[in-house]
């Protein structure tokens, strides 16, 4: 590496380590409490005329409506909780 690369490398890692460490600590500190089981809201489509109440199809739609992205909008839930 040239001198300029070496100088940058020497300065970049301490700075990066401080910023990222602070970020991770904050992320851990401000982590929202675990989710409480939410009352289940039936999906609107489950009550359409094509799906019988209590049927297997309704149950499938019901489960699908509850699916969230595995790493879903924590911020939204956190804001709602507060």
């Amino acid at each position, binding site marked *: 590496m040239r001198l300029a690369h070496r100088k940058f*490398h020497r300065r970049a890692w301490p700075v990066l380590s401080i910023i*990222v460490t602070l970020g991770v600590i*904050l*992320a851990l500190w401000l982590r929202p409490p675990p989710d409480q089981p939410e009352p289940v809201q039936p999906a609107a489509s489950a009550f359409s005329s094509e799906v019988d109440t209590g049927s297997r199809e309704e149950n499938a739609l019901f489960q699908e409506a509850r*699916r969230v992205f595995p790493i879903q909008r924590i911020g939204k839930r956190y804001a709602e909780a507060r």
Partner: protein
Amino acid sequence: MSVGFQAVQWNRSKIVYDSIMVGLTACYIGGYTLIAHRLAPAGKAPDWGDLRIAVFGSCAFLMITIILCIGPLARLDRRFLPLLANRRHLGVFTFFIAALHGWSIVDWFAVRDSLPDLVTELTTPSNYAKFIGFPVKALGLAALTIFFVMAATSHDFWLKFLSPAIWKWLHMAIYLAYGLLVMHVALGLMQDNRSPVVPIVLGLCFATVTTLHILAAQRGRSSESEEKLPSNGWIVVGPPSSIPDQRAFIVHAPDGERIAVFRDGDKIGAVTNVCAHQNGPLGEGKIINGCITCPWHGWEYRLDDGCAPPPFTEKIATYPVRLNAGVVEVSVSPLPPGTPAALSVPYGSFV
């Protein structure tokens, strides 16, 4: 080294390296999937969409951590140099694994007709003002973009086109990408997953990479501080016997650049420490078949004049050397690349 364009210059070492890399990645993905199935509640297989995101994401993160450890490890211990020689293959492969992770996320939304949700999350300005709730996918996308640029410019064609110095600057963006990835995990997975494993693994990975880079930088700095100051434009190296045979003694010019003073038997020559290929540290290499060989990718230069042996055409700067009262001295002023400057030392000087 090559005199013509080749997409990949395959050799036995690269084939072995790549086979091990692909094999270990397949083992990780297979093992992760198997464990996820074992840990799933009885009669309920884990969702393939969720699993795909987790397995490719964690695999890419671990791979990038390993890539970032290779450079400083090779500086601290020469036994890691073989890993460095083929690091670009690992980097490009990591980009593809990371891209699979990104594609799995897009696919997750696409199969549920929720792509507008993903777009909304990424394009709502107010989201970017939050810390907890920051669009983590944007962090991942930024890191993936950096990986793409690095993978796309990894070939020697781009190295030559951009010049080694600019190419090196461009590829140093991986440090930023790694920081973005750590925050991508900290603000994403770590918020949802309450298991202590996530912060522990994340912290260990980041601490290892950071410590190795700081240690490697510190080692270079300490060797510079022990430098003997030049007198009358000449840097004192020491008696010829102080230079290990077929190795180099590295000194620093007043402008901070390093000079590698090599000895090959009774011949002593000084060249810039910067390889013409990727600016690798020539002084950490050795003389093989009469040529200075770069430890990173094996580029060769003659000790006499800093020229690559035919048919190659690369040249590096040489420095005048002299024997003054039994002590080797090297000039601080470089000669034009390819200028003969080596010195033959009488045998008695080694006794």
